């Protein structure tokens, strides 16, 4: 089980590295360590990927290990499945998270189910990497947050790092996984940096991080929403509201235990994500909190997410659409302000 992996303690000083390069470094060092690891995807070779995520790797490992593919998302995922089922450890890239929809049969009907349908005989060490989220005026087909769809499928694991340190350790864990795993990068986090150890390390999948300790309310946020939640928490602290921010880091399997333990302490919870609220992961997390910690709750679990519309193009509309520190603060205040019944 992944839980047997011990996460190294997070360094407080050392080299700073960007989110993209943390990804790139985990891939490079994993390819150096294991000849069965290869990468395939659109424009990842000579060009290095549209966000530079695979930059320089083809120069090091050659075109047979860093493979430029046709624009064929079904075949890209199929390539990964067939290669994984016959003994390699592929990393296949789908340029934008929206494009998983093009490859849905291979992801949902094939990769996720192969092991189960074959009675456990198949092992599928496949990592699918992609880039999600809004914030670049990329409009409705290049900005979605579709993680809830993936988390709904038994057989898949889903990872969504919020910072460069987690990125390197989680990407390493994805590559070592013997299951199909989707690694989602957020396009607005690509330039963010944190202290990242130079050696390879693994952050176990399914293990949340407490990003900020607090006593007033538990805020569950992932991906880019972690930084926005932290900014909101700093504003709220001035008013004596102390947020405890939990970043699940892995969305499937979900670390319910860490979230519930926090809620038992704070008695209130708000779930934040960039995806639309309806049917989003927040609905599942809120349901789990009330199932596991109903007697500890002093208020209904709050949800902050995008409205029920496609992602708009205009920067004016897009900034209204995506949750930010201000809307997260408002969501938290509403939950914290609710008086206890009979109080």
């Amino acid at each position, binding site marked *: *089980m992944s839980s047997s992996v011990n996460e190294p303690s997070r360094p407080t000083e050392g080299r700073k590295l960007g989110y993209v390069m943390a990804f790139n470094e985990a891939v490079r060092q994993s390819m150096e360590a294991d000849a069965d690891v290869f990468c395939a995807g659109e424009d990842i070779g000579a060009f290095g990927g549209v966000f530079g995520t695979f930059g320089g790797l083809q120069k090091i490992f050659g075109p047979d290990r860093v493979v430029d*593919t046709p624009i064929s998302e079904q*075949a890209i995922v199929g390539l990964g499945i067939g290669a994984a089922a016959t003994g390699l450890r*592929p990393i296949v890239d789908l340029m934008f998270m929206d494009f998983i929809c093009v490859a849905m049969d291979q992801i949902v009907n094939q990769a996720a189910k192969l*092991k189960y349908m074959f009675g456990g*005989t198949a092992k599928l060490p496949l990592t699918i990497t992609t880039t999600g989220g809004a914030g670049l005026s990329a409009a409705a087909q290049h900005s979605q947050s579709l993680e809830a769809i993936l988390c709904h499928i038994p*057989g898949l694991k889903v990872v969504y790092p919020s910072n460069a340190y987690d990125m390197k350790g989680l990407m390493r864990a994805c590559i070592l996984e013997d299951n199909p795993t989707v690694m989602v990068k957020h396009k607005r986090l690509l330039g963010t940096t944190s202290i990242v150890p130079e050696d390879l390390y693994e952050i176990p999948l399914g293990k949340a991080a407490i990003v900020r300790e607090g006593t007033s309310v538990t805020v569950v946020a992932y991906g880019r929403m972690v930084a926005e939640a932290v900014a909101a928490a700093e504003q709220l602290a001035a008013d004596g509201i102390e947020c405890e921010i939990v970043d699940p880091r892995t969305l499937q399997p979900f670390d319910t235990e860490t979230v519930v333990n926090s809620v038992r302490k704070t008695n209130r919870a708000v779930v934040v994500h960039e995806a639309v609220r309806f049917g989003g992961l927040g609905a599942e997390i809120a349901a789990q909190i009330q199932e596991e910690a109903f007697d500890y709750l002093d208020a209904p679990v709050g949800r902050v997410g995008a409205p029920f519309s496609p992602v708009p193009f205009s920067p004016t509309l897009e900034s209204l659409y995506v949750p930010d520190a201000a809307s997260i603060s408002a969501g938290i205040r509403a939950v914290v302000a609710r008086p206890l019944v009979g109080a």
Partner: protein
Amino acid sequence: MELSTEVQMDLHRRMVRIRLFEEAAGRLAEAAKLPGFLHLYVGEEAVASGVCTALNDDDHITSTHRGHGHLVAKGGDFNRMMAELMGKSTGYCKGKGGSMHISDLSLGMLGANGIVGAGSPIAVGAAFANKYRGRGQVAVAFFGDGATNIGAFHEAANMACALHLPIVFACENNEYGEFTPRDKTMAITDIVDRAAGYGMPGVIVDGMDVVAVHEAATEAVARARRGDGPSLIEAKTYRFYNHHGIRNLGLSYRPDEEVAEWKRRDPIFSYEGHLIEAGTASAEQIEAVWEELRTDIEAAITFAEESPVPTPDQVLADVYTLRSAS
């Protein structure tokens, strides 16, 4: 191509194994002893047998919803196959896959597949891995005429050619995509016409002639193995039964006379005539093959019927590979 007696008898034996397995499955389905859907391969035996005799044990194949024949031809075990069809714990997939997901990775058989066309991209992945490791293995994607109309096939064929992979695309053109004739769903007569569009050679073979299929496959596999890239074989064939189940006559979508005409070209009986005429085998020897395999299939039915059903814990087992088990 001069085939040894051993290969000729191997071709025959594989076809008879498929026929007996499928006829038995059909009878069991008729008696309501098999749960789920059943897509029988009867009539198309020469294709799987002719292709798989051209492969090594460590070569890979992907299959279709009509997949029993491919597994039998790759060396599948009757007992485990029959148990799987009955949903028993001793089946190939512990009773969790059934007819449409039957597989044996140790034989390089990467699964029957309930999604039309979905096997081809996976075969491309196996071919990629084979080239990557450089051990001379090849992959064969089996698919039907209907699958060439779905995007996954197009992506797979193009990618295989772009990456110059060791793969053979083996099309079983049985003239019907489920219940709709080919000429209603595509404007070409021969699937092989599509090969040129991807930059690979293609040949048409008589899919009722096991030797013709074997010879075409041998050439295509050799081509892939020596690094000359993908090719396509279109085997013109016919399923003797309905898309699913065991009816064959009185179907609204295909005329009884057409079924009768194709059955006159039965790939097994015509081949047996050839074997006897050429003096390769006597009628007695051929009958002995049937007898031996009938015994095997009866034993497999007994094995499957007597096997336990899966235990309740199997619902949640095998969803994920656990780290400690790897």
